[in-house]
């Protein structure tokens, strides 16, 4: 008598659970877009997926620029329960591909004609052995120089286009009693500055040879020594309290007029706009000195993991198509400060910096000067990039000579 209703309830709930599982396939997405604008961006994707009848299971792991997320992902994959998709970028996609855990999403790519929408430098990163395994979300340009024009005006300097002008402007700002270069002495920021300097001193072809192909002759060439000399000179324009400073605090120094210029990727724009500043008027975004024609990119992407059921596979392809859709690319990148990775997205709502970034990317792509960022894990695998980052950090924080730095760099590039 008592058992019957319980049994009924159990049966009913089992049936409900089964029907729920059948009716709504789910995608579980591991990501580290947890800060304000980023969280808003990813919430848009969730909304789009739910509109398509797919249950969104959020798996956000904050902190450490994705380090914590990577650790969580490894644990899940080792345990045999990989999420549907995870925020992985650059050569790491290839590393995961070698583990044999990534899913082929060519179906979504052919349907969406991704090959014609993406520059080949970008689509190559998204493919493992010729098949799409990841979908790009956005493009950040790394080789930007952020400038406070009021500081320049006060110092009587003009916005620099090359390193001679840069140092002339820096001297004037320094003389006027302000910090010329706002910087945070953290290894990744040092590396960000370094790659812009290499790009400016040596040009895109040299950058590609030295920092992407890791050609030993290029790494030890006089051009690389000159890049380190330039970096060493920039170092003298940084205030001494920079050690350990977060990048956004350095940006704040530019915003409130304590400092004149900062080398940083376009995520810095968010800091300016949040402070109520207008691009082109209150702050300038220029390509880093000598890098107007070239473009270093940092692309976030979602790598797709193998899922078991046909329903989940279908949901996975829906997710991939949604990420590439112009609607998502527009709203996500407006929130995040980056630009859409694909062509065919309306430019109306993007600001001056973003549209310049779009134009430069298209031009650089055509001229073959679109290069992956070293500092942001796009160019080479994490082990080599880490070793190179250590060399740059050491150069920035010791009296290491450019010659010694070049030798150490060449050695680091041989890291297996």
């Amino acid at each position, binding site marked *: 008598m008592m058992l019957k209703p319980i049994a009924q309830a159990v049966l009913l709930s089992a049936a409900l659970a089964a029907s729920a599982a059948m009716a709504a396939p789910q995608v579980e997405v591991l990501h580290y877009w947890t800060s304000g604008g980023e969280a808003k961006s990813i919430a848009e994707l969730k909304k789009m997926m739910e509109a398509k009848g797919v249950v969104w299971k959020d798996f956000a792991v904050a902190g*450490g620029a994705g*380090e914590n997320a*990577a*650790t969580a992902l*490894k644990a899940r*994959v*080792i345990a045999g329960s990989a999420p549907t998709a995870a925020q992985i970028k650059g050569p*790491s996609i290839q*590393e*995961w591909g070698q*583990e044999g855990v990534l899913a082929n999403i060519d179906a979504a790519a052919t349907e969406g004609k991704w090959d014609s929408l993406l520059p080949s430098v970008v689509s190559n990163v998204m493919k493992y052995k010729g098949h799409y395994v990841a979908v790009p979300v956005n493009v950040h340009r790394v080789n930007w120089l952020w400038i406070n024009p009021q500081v320049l005006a006060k110092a009587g300097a003009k916005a620099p286009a090359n390193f001679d002008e840069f140092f002339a402007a820096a001297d004037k700002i320094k003389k006027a009693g302000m910090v010329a270069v706002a910087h945070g*002495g*953290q*290894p990744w920021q*040092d590396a960000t500055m370094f790659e812009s300097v290499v790009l400016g001193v040596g040009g895109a072809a040299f950058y590609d040879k030295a920092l992407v192909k890791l050609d030993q002759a290029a790494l030890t060439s006089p051009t690389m020594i000159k890049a380190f000399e330039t970096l060493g000179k920039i170092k003298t324009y940084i*205030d*001494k*309290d*920079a*050690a*350990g400073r977060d990048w956004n605090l350095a940006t704040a120094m530019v915003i409130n007029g304590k400092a004149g210029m900062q080398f940083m990727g376009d995520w810095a724009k968010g800091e300016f706009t949040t402070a109520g500043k207008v691009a082109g008027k209150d702050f300038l975004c220029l390509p880093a000195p000598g890098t107007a024609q070239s473009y270093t990119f940092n692309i976030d992407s979602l790598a797709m993991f193998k899922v078991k059921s046909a329903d989940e596979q279908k949901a996975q392809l829906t997710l991939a198509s949604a990420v590439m859709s112009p609607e998502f690319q527009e709203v996500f990148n407006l929130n995040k400060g980056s630009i859409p990775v694909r062509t065919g997205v309306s430019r109306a709502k993007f600001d001056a910096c973003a549209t310049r970034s779009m134009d430069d990317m298209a031009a650089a792509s055509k001229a073959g000067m679109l290069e992956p960022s070293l500092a942001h894990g796009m160019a080479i*695998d*994490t*082990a080599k990039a*880490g070793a190179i980052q*250590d060399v740059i*950090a*050491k150069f*920035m*924080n*010791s009296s290491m000579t450019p010659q010694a730095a070049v030798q*150490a760099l060449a050695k680091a590039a041989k890291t*297996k």
Partner: protein
Amino acid sequence: MSVSTVPRARAPAAEPTPAPPSASRLAALADTWLPRLVLSPTVVASLVFVYGFIGLTAWLSLTDSRMMPNFEYSGFGQYATLFELDRWWTAARNLGIFGGLFILACLSIGLGIAILLDQRIRHEGALRAIYLYPMALSFIVTGAAWKWILNPGLGLEKMMHDWGFGHFSFDWLVDPDMSIYTVVIAGVWQSSGFVMALFLAGLRGVDDAIIKAAMVDGASLPAIYRRIVIPSLRPVFFSVLLVLSHIAIKSFDLVMALTAGGPGTSSDVPAIFMYQFSFTRGRLGLGAASAMMMLATVLAVLVPLMYLETKGERNGRR
């Protein structure tokens, strides 16, 4: 009386006679098995999660594991790579500087405060609490607070400049040659109160009669401490050394919060090295090798200490 007492005495004796042997057998069984039963989960857990994982790490350090574990033996290449890395030697040297100074400073400051507090002063309880309080904070909090205090543009240096001491300079935090010493400062601030508490407990355990006898013999107070009290604190020294050296060797959070290993990699320590190489740089094998080197350091410090301590105990008993 005697007639009635005998059956009465016999009756209770007669009734339980069959019971006691079984009860005592049960009790004996429980005596032998219950402790084992209760302890076994702990033993199994530590066998697996401590010694099992030490073994696993040791094995990983002999493989070519990169991002994911790979269990194919490949020799001692990871150790060779490790010993060639500048960064590893920076980390090892920093551990030496930090560990040595941290332990020494904690010991001397802790002992000093304990001796001063032991002079039957007023408000001893309150003072004790004040000195012990930093221990209640996590190293992350200590690190973050000291980061602000020691930052030349925010903390001490700026305050002194604002007060008109324009030449005051204290920029160790941003000086690659001195940054590891700021970690020592913060670590000592956090831990010396705890060391004080241990020593104070030890001091209270010293027999008053000996001290009074020494006083009668005309020994001065410093001599009493040097010749009688401090030597009798020998077991406390061992416990303190044990605790402090393992804090020093595994220190990660304090350095992470205070300097994050910087400027550059100048205040790197082995624990940060291990974490970065294993988990963020996809070099699990190399990380495992550095973890084994840390284990070797722990053993090199702790084994002689524990050996001396047990020897000391034996001497004491004799």
